[in-house]
């Protein structure tokens, strides 16, 4: 992107425009998956395995079939194409054949006239099994003689799906040079997305193909999956996301599975088929954040300079690969943290177990290792007798530094500024004194202040650069309004508004003149997934590209219209340069273009800047750019009950240019809340491979009472030359930073060291007692 765009005065970019979709949402008019109906629509229910690992002996659906309102029953033999849910590998069947590998795995499908009938019929299915030994823990699954869970073709060895490394410098030598070394093992559990809208899709047969409507992040993934199970060319499958009630990664790959299920019922019955999960089915059968066992050893010089880190971690991937190899890669690259470290050794493993497949969740494998690296930093600070903020300040990556994968950061590194600004906002030194004072005075209450710093590689990165692309199509209507079509979705994060701002800014039109068309895979080329905090950056660049082309055409036309050499366009007005008095509404020029048969459409395309990576050493340019953040949390712990309350929170982010500050603040606040939940409350219990009590009654996410009353959120903007108007990504970063600041605050308050999430009261009391 040219220099001028980074510094240009903007009309709309950087301004707090209201969300384009807000009015429909506050009126209850936005249509989510379950809000849509089609004539003759059937309701789908999956028959699911209730064993973690077993051979299927018999599957008897005769009673289910006899239910008077059942229209069709689908078994693996009824799948017209391939019995697979294609993600990165093709190891996961749509419907299990021969063996089940986790509780909740789909075996067969019912299509019935009503949701109640589908449910009743599913309960009539009779399955007999021969149990196989199951393994539920990743460390047990990699032991010699453990039962084989992974489909062998999808695994590197035994139950190890994937093993990846970073080898930079010489860790052994690094530790030999270190004056202080800390070491620790950290454990994290599941985190459930808990998007408020459960998963749901509708498959509608149309003209020899299939249309899919649903709550989803990645329409092109769904298109691919449905085409595979139906044996259709991609051109006969069309995917149209509905309003989507939250995603957070949970609607990245999972909707492919739902859509494929609904599609095979629709194909067999010839009728539209709706599959909507209730909360329990959603929790039991969909992806979650990978539980992790994480070991760190970190060494510094006496002055706090980091010299070496050695990391080994195991993620419980569940029974099938799904996105685990990609999650593991992001975790690998992010494990050393946003620091200058000359000697780095990382071994990352994802392991198959007889549990529900884990997948994408905001942060994508990084929060687990961030918990560990930020704990290590505080443990080091303690041993060095150094202020934890000072230790981070000393080691934080700056422009020109080399990351742990040997990538030289040539631009847009706002981490040092973020740290300074966060320290300033909270009054770091004074805050620490205040807390000490409070702790001296109170007998049964303790406060603590915690800090975290993180980096985030924007986009898909060097493991999947082929997905880092996006298309856009812009159309100037004859009345001067503008329609924008993209292939990336709105799941609540505000993409449509931000993309509209970029289009309007670039074209010189009013924001109210721009409308985003509903996403439809038949409208734009494959634009990759809506993940990896990449939409503003990559889809935004595609919109920018199309808008520039369209603007050039409008300018050419306007020169003819006015008979002058130069024109200006702003705020939906057009005038000959230097003669603003002659301005006409853009609608007039647009109409003139329409009358004179001008091409009023323009396509745009963008791809991420080049990246590269050597799988043997883990070295290379992992991501095209990074976002950064520094979070500071103040907590209060009740020493009698172990309850933790987050009192205040300061968050400073560098995500490059912020296109819409109000929406960006909302992203940060929401991420902080999820981070608080991850660190303090969210625990999904399972026994024998079964998730017990899959509901919000047992799985607590933060309410309005669990978040601090005071949030201070700011942005330091280090513009990125490859992003539209200098923007980088933001969506995932707030969660990644928040939980670690909270965890460090809890440790500081209790005087213990939190090494396992979540910090439920029992665990906090143990910390207090052990301190």
């Amino acid at each position: 992107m040219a220099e001028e765009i980074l510094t240009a005065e903007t009309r709309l970019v950087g301004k707090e425009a209201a969300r384009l979709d807000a009015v429909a949402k506050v009126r209850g008019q936005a249509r989510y998956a379950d809000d849509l109906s089609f004539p003759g629509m059937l309701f789908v229910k999956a028959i699911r395995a209730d064993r973690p690992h077993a051979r299927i002996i018999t599957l008897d659906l005769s009673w289910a079939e006899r239910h008077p309102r059942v229209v069709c029953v689908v078994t693996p033999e009824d799948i017209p194409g391939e019995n697979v849910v294609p993600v990165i590998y093709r190891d996961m069947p749509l419907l299990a054949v021969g063996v089940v590998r986790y509780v909740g795995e789909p075996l067969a499908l019912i299509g019935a006239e009503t949701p109640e009938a589908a449910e009743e019929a599913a309960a009539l299915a009779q399955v007999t099994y021969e149990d196989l030994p199951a393994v539920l823990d990743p460390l047990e699954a990699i032991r010699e003689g453990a039962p084989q869970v992974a489909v062998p073709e999808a695994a590197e060895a035994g139950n190890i799906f994937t093993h990846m490394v970073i080898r930079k410098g010489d860790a052994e030598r690094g530790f030999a040079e270190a004056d202080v070394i800390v070491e620790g093992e950290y454990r994290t559990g599941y985190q459930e997305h808990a998007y408020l809208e459960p998963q749901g899709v509708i498959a509608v047969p149309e003209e020899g193909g299939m249309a899919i409507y649903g709550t989803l992040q990645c329409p092109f993934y769904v298109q691919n999956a449905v085409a595979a199970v139906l044996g259709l060319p991609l051109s006969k499958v069309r995917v149209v996301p509905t309003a989507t009630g939250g995603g957070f990664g949970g609607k990245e790959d999972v909707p492919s599975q739902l859509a494929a299920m609904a599609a095979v019922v629709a194909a067999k019955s010839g009728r539209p088929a709706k599959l909507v999960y209730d909360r329990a089915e959603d929790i039991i059968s969909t992806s979650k954040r990978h539980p992790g066992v994480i070991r760190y050893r970190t060494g510094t010089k006496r002055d706090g300079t980091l010299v070496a880190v050695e990391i080994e971690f195991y993620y419980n991937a569940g029974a099938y690969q799904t996105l685990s190899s990609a999650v593991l890669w992001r975790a690998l690259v992010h494990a050393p943290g946003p620091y200058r470290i000359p000697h780095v050794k990382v071994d990352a493993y994802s392991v198959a177990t007889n549990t529900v497949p884990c997948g994408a969740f905001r942060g994508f494998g990084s929060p687990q290792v961030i918990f560990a690296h930020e704990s290590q930093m505080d443990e080091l600070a303690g041993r060095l007798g150094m202020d934890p903020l000072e230790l981070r300040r000393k080691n934080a990556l700056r422009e020109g530094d080399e990351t742990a994968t040997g990538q030289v950061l040539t631009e847009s590194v706002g981490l040092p500024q973020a740290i300074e600004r966060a320290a300033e906002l909270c009054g770091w030194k004074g805050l620490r004194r205040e807390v000490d004072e409070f702790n001296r005075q109170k007998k049964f209450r303790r406060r603590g202040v915690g800090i975290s710093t993180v980096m985030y590689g924007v986009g898909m990165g060097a493991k999947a650069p082929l997905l880092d692309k996006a298309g856009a199509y812009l159309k100037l209507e004859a009345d001067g309004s503008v329609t924008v079509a993209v292939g990336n979705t709105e799941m609540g994060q505000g993409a449509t508004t931000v993309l509209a701002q970029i289009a309007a800014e670039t074209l010189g039109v009013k924001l109210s003149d721009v409308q985003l068309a509903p996403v439809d895979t038949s409208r734009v080329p494959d634009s990759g997934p809506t993940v990896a905090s990449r939409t503003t950056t990559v889809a935004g660049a595609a919109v920018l590209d199309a808008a520039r082309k369209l603007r050039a055409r409008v300018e050419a036309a306007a020169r003819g219209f006015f008979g002058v050499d130069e024109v200006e366009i702003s705020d939906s007005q057009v005038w000959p340069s230097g003669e603003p008095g002659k301005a006409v509404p853009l609608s007039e020029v647009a109409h003139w273009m329409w009358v004179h048969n001008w091409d009023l459409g323009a396509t745009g395309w963008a791809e991420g800047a080049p990246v590269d990576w050597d799988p043997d050493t883990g070295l290379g340019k992992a991501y095209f750019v990074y976002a950064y953040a520094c979070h500071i949390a103040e907590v209060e712990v009740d020493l009698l009950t172990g309850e933790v309350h987050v009192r205040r929170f300061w968050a400073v982010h560098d995500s490059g240019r912020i296109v819409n500050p109000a929406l960006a603040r909302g992203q940060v606040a929401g991420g902080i809340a999820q981070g608080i939940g991850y660190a303090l409350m969210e625990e999904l219990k399972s026994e024998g491979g079964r998730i017990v009590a899959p509901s919000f009654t047992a799985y607590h996410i933060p309410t309005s009472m669990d978040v601090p009353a005071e949030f201070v959120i700011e942005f330091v903007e280090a513009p990125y030359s490859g992003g539209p108007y200098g923007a980088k990504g933001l969506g995932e970063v707030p969660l990644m930073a928040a939980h670690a600041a909270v965890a460090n605050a809890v440790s500081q308050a209790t005087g213990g060291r939190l090494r396992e999430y979540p910090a439920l009261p029992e665990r906090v009391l143990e910390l207090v007692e052990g301190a």
Partner: protein
Amino acid sequence: MRIKFVFNGREIEVETHPGRRLIDLLRADLGLTGTKEGCGEGECGACTVLVDGKPRLSCLTAAIQAEGREVLTIEGLRENGGLHPIQRAFVETAGVQCGFCTPGFIMATYALLKENPDPTPEEVRAWLSGNLCRCTGYQQIVEAVLLAAKYLRGDALRVTRNEKTP
């Protein structure tokens, strides 16, 4: 069985049965899908509607309990054909992200501000603690409620008229 009730200001009569939940009556039978189901077991508040002015979880309420009462859903909330001040406030403060929780929050807010037109931020947080939002972290929702309270207090006439014809 047939039940009669006032639905969004209009008296209606519908066929239902004792096993039917109010949320299904609203969404499936009456075809108004603004009321959302996030959990179906009383934990998320997305299904909040007003029955005789009181917030009720429509996933835990039997349809037949509407008999003889006034039921107000998000679709019935408007003012002079435009946005109700509460809706306007949610738009203006960016208290909406994915929007799935929004109808429930707005209905809960409506009930709160009727009872307490000038709530403190703490009162707002306490009142809304039965409504889950996974997107916003609640900050901008609390701001929306406080702004809505201001709008409503600033125009007492509007409030009175509103109570009669929601």
